């Protein structure tokens, strides 16, 4: 999968270079040989792209449900009107970050040149889409789905609902079955909702030592001298009706077996 995408990348880049070379030949001093050479290069690049696109389309993907988009009211609004800040950087880019086990956030920027290159690779102008790839650890796709978007400058929260999965997103143009991307983000992994299956092993790295271990808790401590009057009458472990925590801590009954060990420990319940 990754190889095919890389070939597609390369073919798109070659096509862009060929277009640029042809434009340069047209703008420069007239010369039939130069033009002919540029036209040949363009033809070769177009053929290479067609082959790469065919290879991509040949990948068999399982029939999977569409990537869930968040409800409209939860979608990111357009960027705030920050007049003082340069909104456009002049670079084709897309960024993807994990928000939680179920969603990721992406922002992107496209340039006219980048869009031109992508569209040149297609038969028609195509439709601008976010293409989201959910990948297994071996880069095999779990899902590939397209989300239509409108703007060259935008952001979106992606509801993915696949904890622990690896995700990559590309933005580009789709025409029929063909897709030419303008920019692609780095691969991320959504947080897991359970421990992974790596082997349990122990280590003793660097043997950390406190700077002043003897001073943290002196072996010989002075006798307790005084206490606030309010504390003097208190007896340890006395009835404590105001709170439910008198007995053993409640979550202690909720046990889960730890894979690969003989220990049983409470699963615990997060309290934020």
């Amino acid at each position, binding site marked *: 999968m990754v190889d095919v995408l890389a070939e597609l990348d390369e073919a798109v880049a070659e096509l862009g270079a060929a277009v640029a070379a042809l434009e340069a030949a047209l703008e420069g001093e007239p010369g039939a040989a130069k033009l002919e050479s540029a036209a040949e290069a363009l033809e070769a690049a177009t053929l290479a792209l067609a082959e790469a696109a065919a290879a991509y389309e040949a990948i068999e993907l399982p029939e999977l449900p569409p990537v869930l988009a968040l409800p409209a009211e*939860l*979608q990111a*609004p357009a960027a*705030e009107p*920050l007049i003082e*800040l340069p909104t456009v*950087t002049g670079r084709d880019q897309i*960024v993807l*970050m*994990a*928000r*939680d*086990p179920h969603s990721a*956030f992406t*922002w992107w920027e496209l340039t006219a040149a980048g869009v031109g290159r992508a569209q040149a690779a297609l038969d028609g102008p195509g439709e601008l889409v976010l293409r989201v790839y959910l990948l297994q650890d071996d880069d095999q796709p779990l899902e590939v789905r397209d989300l239509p978007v409108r703007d060259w400058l935008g*952001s979106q*929260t992606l509801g993915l609902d696949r904890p622990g999965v690896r995700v990559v997103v590309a933005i580009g143009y789709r025409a029929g079955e063909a897709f030419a991307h303008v920019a692609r983000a780095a691969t991320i*992994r959504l*947080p*897991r909702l*359970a*421990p992974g299956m*790596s082997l*349990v092993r*122990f*280590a003793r790295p660097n043997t*950390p*030592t*406190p*700077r*002043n*271990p003897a*001073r*943290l*808790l002196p072996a010989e401590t*002075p*006798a*307790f001298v*005084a*206490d*606030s009057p*309010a*504390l003097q009458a*208190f007896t340890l*472990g006395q009835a*404590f009706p105001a*709170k439910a925590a*008198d007995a*053993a*801590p*409640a979550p202690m009954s909720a046990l889960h077996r*730890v894979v*690969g060990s003989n*220990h049983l*420990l409470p699963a*615990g*319940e*997060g*309290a*934020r």
Partner: protein
Amino acid sequence: MIGHVALVLHHHLPYIRHPEHPFFLEERWLFEAITETYLPLIEAWRALERDGVPFCFTASMTPPLCNMLRDELLCARYRTHLATLQELADKEVERTVGEPESHRVARFYQRRFRDLSSLYAAIDGDVVGEYRRLMEAGFLEIITCTATHGFLPLMNGDRGAMWAQIEVACAEHARHFGRRPDGIWLAECGYVPHVDALLAAAGLKYFFVDTHGIQHAEAPPVYGVYAPLYCPGSGVAAFARDPESSKQVWSSHEGYPGDASYREYYRDIGFDLELEYIRPYIHPDGIRINTGLKYHRITGRTDQKGIYHPEQARQRAGEHAANFMFNRQAQARYLASRMDRAPVIVSPYDAELFGHWWYEGPWFLEALARHIHRDQDEIALTTPMRALAAQPENQESRPGMSSWGGGGYAAFWCNETNDWIYRYLHEAARKMGELARAFPQADGLERRALNQAARELLLAQASDWAFIMTTGTTVEYAVKRTRDHLATFHALHDALVAGAVDAALVAAREDQWRIFPDLDYRVYAATP
């Protein structure tokens, strides 16, 4: 000992300093925290020290907070603030003469502010210096935090940006505390896998994650959250929050701070008394604000609040401390029977919870240390470095991405209220890296401009702004700060690229944002 309890207090406030305004409302966050949290904590620790009670707490002190606590202007303003509080308390003692119950509370505040004023004078107005003294005396293990409380999981994996947040913090810690830190509190416990390699490069030995960070680690954690994990490759230890002890203090419903005896935070004479009377002690525009004088106790779920009794509240804090210890003992017994080592129960809290939100919190901590020392021999207070020294062999596994914020991951800092900032933050961080590489040996004005550009970027990255945008309080200020720092960053960037740095702009910004005086922009070109 069958178990250890590591109490961790995270001290942080965003860097707010506005010399251009004689009164700036958000600066009062610092003043309130000094009065209600930092000085009372120092008072409690000094009392323990005086009485020979051994104790050890872990305190994370963020660079913005340390810089503000040592800022000449802010310290001067704080002294005025404290004097005003004393004046108001004196007036209240007179006003409440005919109301015996309220009068007793007024006299309590009169005494309290005088005591705090004396304490502030006794430490020469240097809260950071006193923390350092307590560290050097072995009572506190002080650690750092990301430089401006930058939330690493949303830095798009930009190693340069993350490294700057880590390394600048460590250097700043050394400036304040005389040594680089052993540990770091990742802002909002925001851990993203592999950032531990950068922590190791900075010489850090441990950090904290929320409970599920370890529960969802790469390998099943054999001791749950009751022993640290070493991150593979880096060897940096991750300690996780114990959910049980957290809930007992944090929960607004079940937690100790909701007890009926405790001071009611939401009733303040800034709102309750006649406007003309209280006017000199609120916002100069006549806007009512909290003064810090509160006469009521929580009482219950009613608007009819009873009058506060400080002595009863302090007694209750002692009872709660004993209960907290009792439960940790039970927890340690349970865990020890199932582990081949003494469990380490990590209980981290925002320091400002103690005193500011939970007025009796510092009394609780003092009483807890006394109870643990005096009344049992099953559990002991510890710190992460001490725990690692006692048990250097630990499981190796990498925690999962996590935070301790709402939802447990990054959504609290990346949602429809604030996600617009990331496009700009990422781009500015990329450009800062380019600048650092393009100007490897700058000096003079150029160097100052580069340092200021780095400073502006770091300040823009503070997680506080995104946090405030989500919570919906003082959003305008958070947006303004984000925009202001980024706009200035771009102005400096463009001027440096064009070779036309505006000396007046650099000087003005250096003067206003006096954080990181030793900052070296080349940190952005030296990512390990």
